[in-house]
């Protein structure tokens, strides 16, 4: 039983997709990121992904790269991640962490899982950790009751999808396009095919990320996925402060409710 299961039971019961919003911790500063994340939750994000700013974000496009640099220049430290998650949880929000693996490895996989769990975090999305290399994370996440959200990609073989979903809990993150993060005019047609291929291997909820930026796109994705994941667009709107991310969350939250859900 994953910590995220009740969330998806609720959104499934409501016949809609879940809205997941991403923002790096410490962007633009630690206190401001807490306010932004709380605003995103208040305005309709069912779950937030708190990103760990990292020096070498190879899966990220220019917007999130720049945000990570801003956070690191402003003095973000890994310990700030846990206080950020704690502040989100204290305000009644639900949070997972999205992080490249080296900061976790350096901190100590078990210690990281322990401290994230203590802060109220629900799981970790791992863009550069595949299940093949994740023995210590499987152990630590089990010990500390965290969900393991691995990624599947349009290039994943059936064999790899099966292996990945078998190691996952909470939900599975399907990358909509072959490429890095960043808002796009169109979410690739690859996404729907990938979700359907993934469903053949699991009953876990499937979230689709990479490229979504508008309510209309959210509706389109929510028609075939259990969750819509939005990152770069929130980071861009953060320039307008809490109002910016709230406005976007409201638009996206309406979008995920518009779609005739295929779920249930």
């Amino acid at each position, binding site marked *: 039983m994953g910590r995220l299961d009740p969330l998806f039971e609720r959104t499934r019961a409501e016949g809609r997709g879940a809205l997941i919003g991403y923002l790096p911790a410490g962007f633009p500063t630690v206190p401001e990121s807490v306010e932004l994340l709380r605003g995103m939750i208040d305005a309709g994000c069912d779950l937030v992904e708190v990103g760990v700013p990292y020096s070498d974000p*190879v899966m990220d496009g220019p917007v999130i790269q720049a945000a990570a640099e801003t956070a690191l220049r402003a003095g973000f430290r890994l310990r700030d991640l846990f206080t950020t998650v704690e502040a989100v949880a204290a305000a009644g929000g639900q949070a997972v962490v999205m992080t490249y*693996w080296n900061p976790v*490895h350096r901190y100590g996989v078990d210690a990281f899982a322990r401290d994230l769990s203590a802060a109220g975090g629900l799981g970790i999305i791992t863009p*550069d950790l*595949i299940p093949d290399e994740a023995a210590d994370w499987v152990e630590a996440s089990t010990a500390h009751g965290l969900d393991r959200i691995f990624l599947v990609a*349009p290039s*994943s073989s059936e064999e790899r999808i099966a292996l990945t979903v078998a190691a996952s809990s909470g939900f599975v993150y399907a990358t909509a396009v072959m490429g*890095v993060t960043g808002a796009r005019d169109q979410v690739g047609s690859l996404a729907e095919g990938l979700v359907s291929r993934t469903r053949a291997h699991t009953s876990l909820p499937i979230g689709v990320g990479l490229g979504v930026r508008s309510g209309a796109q959210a509706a389109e994705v929510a028609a075939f996925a259990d969750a819509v994941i939005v990152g770069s667009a929130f980071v861009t709107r953060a320039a307008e402060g809490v109002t910016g991310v709230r406005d976007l969350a409201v638009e996206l939250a309406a979008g995920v409710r518009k779609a005739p859900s295929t779920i249930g």
Partner: protein
Amino acid sequence: MTDERGTDPHKPGPHDPDNRGHFGPYGGRFMPEALIGALDELSAEYDKARLDPEFTDEFTRLLRDYAGRPSLLTEAPRFAEHAGGARVFLKREDLNHTGSHKINNVLGQALLTKRMGKKRVIAETGAGQHGVATATACALMGLECVVYMGEVDTERQALNVARMKLLGAEVIPVKSGSRTLKDAINEALRDWVTNVDTTHYLLGTAAGGHPFPVMVRNFHKVIGAEARAQFLELTGRLPDVVTACVGGGSNAIGIFHGFIDDPEVRLVGIEPGGKGIETGEHGATLSEGTPGMLHGALSYLLQDEDGQTIEAYSISAGLDYPGVGPEHAWLKDTARAEYRSVTDDEAMHAFRLLSRTEGIIPAIESAHALAGALKLGQELGPEGHILVNLSGRGDKDMDTAAKYFGFYEDGGADGPRGTEES
């Protein structure tokens, strides 16, 4: 191609990683799932090719008829006078086409690219040597070539940018992060994840996710295989020490492997000590780093306590990389190889010394190994026999050297160490 012991450098052997690319705990694949399919495809193709005489014969033919192999083994007696009287021998990778050992790997990977039916090649480059070698192989084989290069490096190495363009490559200046080699690799990985169906990422060193470390190593094993046979022929014995510079570690792993089963031969990797280890401005990853993952593999890494990569520094643009190939991490931990560092000043001293005693201008990268040899010679004394991998030539470094020694200044002064060497 076999060495004198009949060992085929391409055949699987006891020093290969496990089937998921682990050298002990190091290596593996810390890569996005989106790239795993391409790495699997590359592994499968390489595993077939390394056993296919059609491939290995073509590779050997290109090394001979295009790259100019075998490269010479040259004794350096006047240089050796400064090395405690030990005998010093140079493996002359500087004489290869394009001027360094890099050509071995790019010819192998370009052949594989054609086997996979891919038409587009991307590469990263720091100083430009790997970029030039890649552009060369792509011109030879009719492949489209895109080279990512940190913006800072495109300015420092304008001549190599021009060479790549002349060879038909597109050079993309990378403006993200520190705008140097590490960020060029990040940007190349972003391109690869976007264009993986049509594109091969021709990584330039024995690092990255599996199968790159073992594959790149095997393409460079020819260095050690030739050197061992040449050394035996010339001296009737094996060297006491084999030394090479280590940035990502490809030239070192190539020459080390010729001697890895000779336990009496010490293997010593020389890292860039930059302005001195104590200043923090260096690239001595194995000497000063801690285990971590960067660009797809677990190895040693220069990182802070939060796991953020620390920028490396070296006067040599080919050595200022904060990571290192995973097999070196394993050789360090198992004590089969030793790693130490020399400073910019020590490397530049050796750079000028070799030029003036032997008439050979080394790459500044290779000058680190030469500086290491000067110290090793003092330790070994007159009975010592040292083999140095002279991994590249120094033409590309003339601007750096001229500035360092003050050759552009009025009167052409002789710089920070203005004494005659010999």
